[in-house]
């Protein structure tokens, strides 16, 4: 099966982490964008079509949860995976209640990351597909009115 590349946005204030992580994801065939703050992330989302955002919870300024809320308001279909250096998974669970797809604990196992990205991308694709179908039905019904 040919792997469909996911368009991933990595958001973390730890620049070295973002760099290494994106290199690795890139090597594995994903299309990676990066941002070092919540604000930057929203800017990237405005310009680039993204499937999955990998979002650090603890960031100075606008934190992960705030960023998550913004993303889910502006781009509800984009999937978000939270990254936590926290042992306390409470915030991550909180985030999932706000619409995050899943969470990962730092340092995360790369296999886990890959699986979660893949599943998140699939869910987004399926959702988009359902929307297309619904739009199609809407279109058909309208044309049936005439």
């Amino acid at each position: 099966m040919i792997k469909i590349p996911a368009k991933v946005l990595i958001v973390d204030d730890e620049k070295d982490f973002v760099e290494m992580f994106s290199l690795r994801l890139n090597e594995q065939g994903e299309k990676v964008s990066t941002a070092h703050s919540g604000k930057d992330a929203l800017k990237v989302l405005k310009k680039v079509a993204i499937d999955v955002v990998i979002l650090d919870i603890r960031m100075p300024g606008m934190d992960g949860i705030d960023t998550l809320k913004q993303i889910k308001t502006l781009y509800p279909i984009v999937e978000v995976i939270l990254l936590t250096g926290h042992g306390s998974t409470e915030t991550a669970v909180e985030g999932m209640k706000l619409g995050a797809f899943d969470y990962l604990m730092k340092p995360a196992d790369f296999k886990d990351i890959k699986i979660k990205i893949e599943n998140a991308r699939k869910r987004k694709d399926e959702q988009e597909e359902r929307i297309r179908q619904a739009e199609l039905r809407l279109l058909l019904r309208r044309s049936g009115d005439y």
Partner: protein
Amino acid sequence: MNRLDDDKIRLLLVDDEDGFRKIITKRLAKRGINPFQAASGEECLNILEKEPMDVVVLDVKMPGISGIDTLKVIKQEYEKIQVILLTGNVAVTDGIEGIKSGAFDYLTKPVEIDHLVNKIRQAFEIICLEEEKQKELEYRAKLEKKMIDTERLISLGTMSTGIAHEINNPLAIINESAGFMKYILSSSEMSNIPRKDALMMGIEKIEKSVKRASLITHQLLGHVKKQKSLLSNVDILSLLHETFGLMEKDIKDKQININWEIDNEKNIVWSDPYQIRQVLMNLLSNAVHALKENGSITLSTREIDDDIILEIKDNGVGIPRENLGKIFDPFFTTKSFDEGTGLGLFVVHKILSGLNGGIDVTSTVGKGSCFQIRLPKYDKSNG
């Protein structure tokens, strides 16, 4: 003072006049006090070396060592003993000098027996009071030390959590970098580079060490005080059964006997089941580790005021006295690094403090250890 205590008074009567001693002894005996006797200061000091005494009734005027000198020696060697001096009618100055040297009081001869008995009782009362005071001081010192220990551990907990947080980020970078290099090395363009195996081995060592370090940070962070711990009625008995279920293999391998002495009425606490399970897991696996084959673990519960006490007792190797003060410290361990991080009991202590509970331990080398967990029965935060 209760008259019934009279027979507890250990009294030594010192006088060189045999007749006087005998009469006084007889009269004291009638009132329930049976004194030892000495005929001189030397004899008095000899007896004190062998027999513990509370009160000494001491004649001042004696041949050999004088009463005052005897008194000085007694006060120097046995500070708890109270001395009542007997002085001649005209020798009031002796009595005063005696009191200056530490005597409890003095009586002039001829002595009225009831008067003497009262003085003896008063002196004994002072001794009892002082003993109580001493006990209270010791108790208070112990309590204070425990409070300091607890505070120290709590601040250590806060600090270690902070450090663990900060270390996780660089760990993630190391992990990503190593993973990236490994991926590049495994790609087809790299298939023929020299010494590839050595590079691979190095990278794998890095990855393994990252795993080890993150095990520690996660253990430290796993019990960060939750903003909203989910508290509920927790049945300790069923949590114990669950925990043993997870350890079934170890218990069977070592053929460990579990003695259940749990009171069915006294095993419900208001707490966080996840954290309690963690506590039980740590303590029970320690107990199992401490046991040889056929050892046993005894579990019991009891109630003290609004708390439930769970006792986990093993008859394993025990903890040396010099280690008892350190076992709750982070990273204190007697095991090698791959057997334990030295965080288990630290985490247990941290969890229990967070839940308004506590933990105590007693242990004897070769006989085993006993851990006592205290947890509140009711929600204390709401009064």
